[in-house]
Structures are given as C-alpha cells and as structure tokens.
C-alpha cells in the first residue's frame, strides 16, 4: 500500500527529513535584514530623512519571525514552528536589553571624553564660571564619604553576620534577619531623609555634612555586607570549626583564626560590591551632603561635593555657557562609571583568585 505513495521530497538522510537545515534560520535572518535595509533605504530616500538603523533592525526582526514561523510550519509542523518563534523572541529580548547598555556606555564615553583632561582632575569649581574647572573636590568628597561609610558599615555588617551564623539563636536572631531584609528595601532617598532628620536634631535645620552622607550610605551598605558575609560564613565547612574547637581553641579564636580567614575572599568581594553600589548613590548625598564648589576635607562640617551629585548638578542647573557644564557632567559620569567598573571587576578577580579551595 505504502509503495504507491510517491515520496514528496528526496532526503539523503531519513533521520533529518522534515527538518530545516541548520543554516536555514541564519539564511532567513540575512534575507529579512536585507529586505529591512532596502525598505529603510526607500523610506530614507522618499522622505529625505537619514537612513535609520532602528527601522532596519525592527523590520528585519519582525520579517524574520514571520518567515521562520511560516517556513517551519510548512516543513516541520506547528509545534516546531512555535518553538522557533519563541526562540526568536527570546533572543530578541536579550539583544534588546543590550541596546541600552551599549548606547549608554558609548554615549558616556563619547560625551565624557571632551573634558577628560588633566585640568579636570586637578582643579575644583571654585570661582569657575563657564569653561574650565574640575572635579577634584568631588573626587575627594566621594572618597571621604565612601571611606566613612565603609568604616561604619563594614564592622557592623561583619559582626552582625558573625552573630547570625555563629551565635544567633531564638527571637533576636530572627528579628535581625527580618529587619536586615527590610533594610534592603529602603529607598535610597529615605536613607538620606533619615540622616538629615538625625543630624538636624543636633545641628539644627538645614544641616549639611559629609558624615551625614556616610551615615545614609552605610544604612544602604550594611544589609549588603551582612547578606554576603552571612552567605560566606555559612559556606565555611563545619568540620573546620569542630576540629578547632576539639583542639581546645576558644570559640572567639576559632572564629577569628579559622572561620574568618577561610571566608575572607568572599567577604572582601561582598564589601567591594557593596562599595560599588553605594559609590554611585546620588539621592541621599544630594539631601544631606549638599553641593558646593569648594574643596572640603572635613567630613564633619559643611557641605561636601561628591561625583554623582556633581554630575547631576552640572547637568540640571547649567550656567551661561551651557555646553561647558554639560561636558563636565558627562566627564564626571565617565569617571564614575570607570570607578564602578573597576570595583566590580576587582571584586570578581578577588572572588576568582582568592576563593577558598573547596575542601575536597
């Protein structure tokens, strides 16, 4: 009976019959993009506007989805066609997410290069109107505020994590875990308002100081430090603790000499990432550290400029020569992005090279 049915297509390999060859989606994609480019070219020619890459990408993507679904439906059947459609959509979603990242980095790099010079790093904004000036005061402010935030939050965070992992039992430990979770969700601007409310008690209304900024930042930093340190301490094998305790080492020495050194790389990574997170915070510093054009080395007194606030301030309230202010804002953004990237990469490097060897 079956012999009477003529084969619809001659396949070399019966196992791959009814399947699209591997190159088919790529070929379809190429054709779709070409058509998209042709249409975009026609539109550009007809309306006299610039050739739009966005049109090419959008048209190419939609055409590809339609084409691959239809072709696959005809050759492979509906289930496979749905699979290919979804694959296309998912890859498209990922590429779409790359667009803002690339666009942002390129924009900051191009616009920031204009004032990325020696003067920018060696001058403050004191008595600068229009062109010139620099961010030295903002860099010093950012470094001081961040150092103070770290001085407050690193010991508190690490000791809290030690308490939670090594000592914590009962309701106090539960309460701390819960409220660290709550703390993770505090909006940064609320942290700034808290620091203001706290310092306004002692120093009166309108108080501004770098230390207040450090307090606000540490409120944001502590939960990150606690979480990461806790995770790392939990990773330390119990055998190590038991061995040390069995040798008669006091518990505090066990923690200080055995547990902490084993988890050190992870803790340092966590702290570095926490610093990278708070160093770009703008809102709390805008509220409590304020802005100034002068150098201020004293965190306990007076307004203190920081890099993110500098970028914000230069961009939203430019003076007469607008472009000079915009250029400084972009260059400050570039410096900030570089610092954050270096901290992030540094954290990964530490995690990669100094991670404890996994026991067995």
């Amino acid at each position, binding site marked *: 009976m079956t012999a009477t049915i003529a084969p619809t297509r001659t396949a070399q390999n019966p196992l791959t019959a009814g399947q699209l060859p591997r190159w088919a989606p790529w070929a379809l994609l190429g054709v779709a993009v070409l058509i998209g480019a042709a249409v975009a070219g026609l539109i550009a020619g007809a309306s006299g506007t610039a050739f739009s890459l966005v049109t090419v990408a959008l048209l190419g993507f939609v055409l590809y989805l339609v084409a691959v679904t239809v072709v696959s439906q005809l050759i492979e059947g509906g*289930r496979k066609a*749905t*699979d290919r459609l979804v*694959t296309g*959509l*998912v890859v498209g*979603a*990922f590429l779409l*997410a790359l667009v803002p*990242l690339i666009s*942002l980095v390129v924009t*900051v790099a191009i616009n920031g290069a204009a004032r990325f010079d020696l003067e920018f790093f060696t001058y403050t904004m004191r008595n600068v109107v229009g062109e010139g000036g620099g961010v030295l005061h903002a860099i010093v402010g950012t470094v001081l505020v961040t150092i103070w935030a770290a001085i407050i939050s690193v*010991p*508190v965070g690490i000791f*809290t994590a*030690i*308490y*939670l*992992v*090594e*000592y*914590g039992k009962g309701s*106090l430990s539960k*309460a*701390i875990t819960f*409220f*660290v979770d709550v*703390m*993770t*969700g505090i*909006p*940064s*601007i*609320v942290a700034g*308002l*808290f620091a*203001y409310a*706290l310092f306004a008690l002692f120093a009166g*209304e*309108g108080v501004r100081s770098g230390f207040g900024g450090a307090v606000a930042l540490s409120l944001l930093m502590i939960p990150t430090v606690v979480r990461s340190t806790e995770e790392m301490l939990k990773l330390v094998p*119990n055998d190590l603790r*038991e061995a040390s*305790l069995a040798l008669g080492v006091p*518990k*505090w020495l066990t*923690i200080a000499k055995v547990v902490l050194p084993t988890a050190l790389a992870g803790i340092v990574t966590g702290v570095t990432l926490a610093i990278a997170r708070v160093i*770009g*915070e*703008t*809102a709390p510093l*805008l509220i409590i550290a*304020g802005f100034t054009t002068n150098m201020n080395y004293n965190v306990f007194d007076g307004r203190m400029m920081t890099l*993110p*606030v500098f*970028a914000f301030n230069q*961009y939203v309230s430019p003076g007469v020569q607008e472009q000079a202010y915009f250029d400084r804002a972009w260059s400050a953004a570039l410096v900030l*992005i570089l610092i*954050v*990237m270096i901290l992030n990469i540094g954290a*990964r490097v530490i995690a990669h090279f100094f991670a404890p060897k996994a026991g067995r």
Partner: protein
Amino acid sequence: MTTAAPAASRATATKRPADIAFQAVSTVAGVLILIALGGVAIFLVAQAVPAIIGPIPEAEGASFWDWVWPLTFGTLWSAFLAMIMAVPLAVAIALFITHFAPRRLAQLLGYVIDLLAAIPSVIYGLWGIAVLAPFFQPAFLWLGENLGWLPLFTPPASGTGRTILTASVVLAVMVLPIITALCREIFLQTPRLNEEAALALGATRWEMITMAVLPHGRSGIIASSILGLGRALGETMAVAMVLASSGVVSFVVIGSQNPSTIAANIALRFPEAHGITVNMLIGSGLVLFAITLLVNGLSRWIIAKTTVDGGR
C-alpha cells in the same frame, strides 16, 4: 546551627573573658541594626508629624494628603508602566541565559546583564535626557496623531520627549537586571529530571519550558517582580532628571503634563526647602517608605510561603 551547641548543653565550656567580649560585640552589632531601623522610623515620623497634622502652605494644597496624593499616583503609575515592560523582558532574558544560550557563554552573558545593575542611577538620568527622550519624541508625536483617541495617548504630545513613558522606560532598564538575576536563579533550580523527562518524551524546547520550567518558577517570578517593583518605586535620580513634571494626576503617557513621583519630588525640592516644606517632604518620604515596605513584605511573604511547600 552552631556546632558547639550540643557539647555546650552537656558540659559547659569554660567562658573566657575574650569569649564573652567577642560574643557581646557581635550581639551589639546586630542590635545596632535594630536600633538604627527603629531610629529611621522614629526620626522620620517625628519630623513628618508637623506637616501631617498641621496646616501646610496654601500654595501646596488643602491638606498634606491632598498634596501627597498626586505624587503617590505618579510613583505607582510610573512603576506600573516600568513593570509592564520589564517583567516579560526579564523572564525572556532569564530563559535565554539559562535555556537557550550556548552553555559556555551563559555565565558571561549573565554578567553582561548584571553590568546594567552596576551603573549609577544618575548616569541613567543623563542618558535618559540626552539619548532616550529625543529618540522617543517623534514616536510620541506619531502616537498622538494616530492613536490620540486612546486615553493613554491624548495629544498634544510632549515637545521634549521627557514624559512619564520615557521615565518608565529608564526605570524598566534599571529594574531589568534585578528581576533577571533572580529569575535566572529560579530557572536554574528547576529539577533537571523534569526537564529531561519532558525532552525525552519528544517535547520541543519551548514545550519543555512551559511544562517544566515555568510552572516550577511561577511564584519565584512573581516574587522577584515584586522585589523589582520595590526598587522601581523608590528610584529617585533617573526620574527626577528625565521627567518634566507638573504635579497633575493624569494617565496620559506622552504629554508634557506629567505627574511627579515622591522620590523625585524630594530630590528636586529638598536642597532649597526650609520650614514646614522640609516636614512635608519628609512626610512624603514616610509614605514612600510605607509603600515599599508593603511591597517588599508581600514579596518576602510569597517567597517564604513557597519555599516551605515547593522547596526540596
């Protein structure tokens, strides 16, 4: 949890002074966090009370709640728009990284998406004004002309592109990596046997995902979305910079009259504020704090509820 606990209950270990001191320091650090949070609540309430119960300047509105309502609306509306865009995209990206991308590239691609989370919000603000707003402006004009009958797109369209939709897109980009990272973890925890069983029965990759991965991760997706929502609600600088706001209550997403958000309003007005205005702003901060607490609490509740019966 502690290894010494069973031993200590039988024969009490000698308590050295150093031991006691170390334990005390650790406990104090933990308690300090509780005190700090209590302080946040007390100080904010104390500073907010004058504005909440007392009269506020007539130019601001009839009462504190009258004044804070448009801001609350703007906060919720912009976060809602951002979530509509971010959640499907984040789930798709998490699926791409866990189930579609080549195994070797997956970790690197995940790291690339994490980079989005590392960029400071003030830079998103700059980018939103300089790149995104001009890019969207023609699209807004087109929407106003052709879809103006929809209440969302009532013309006239904004001339600068700095509308609540642009701000929401920036917010969406900012919460995207947070939701993606959490969803990725959840999708990776899908039992391998379920996935392999589905594939062995002849399911395509997408069918395997709808049968094994998504049902397993449903509550996780919801919880991580709500965590992202908490972040979007509290985000300050990007909105403060991108949005050209006028304090109205309006659903129009392309116009030049946009509602402001609580956080952005505080950031823009606090530097020049004095007297009762400071109290009003702190009061609005308290409202924001309450909203984010509620949202985050909901998310933790979902996570806690599902890890009990769904965990291994």
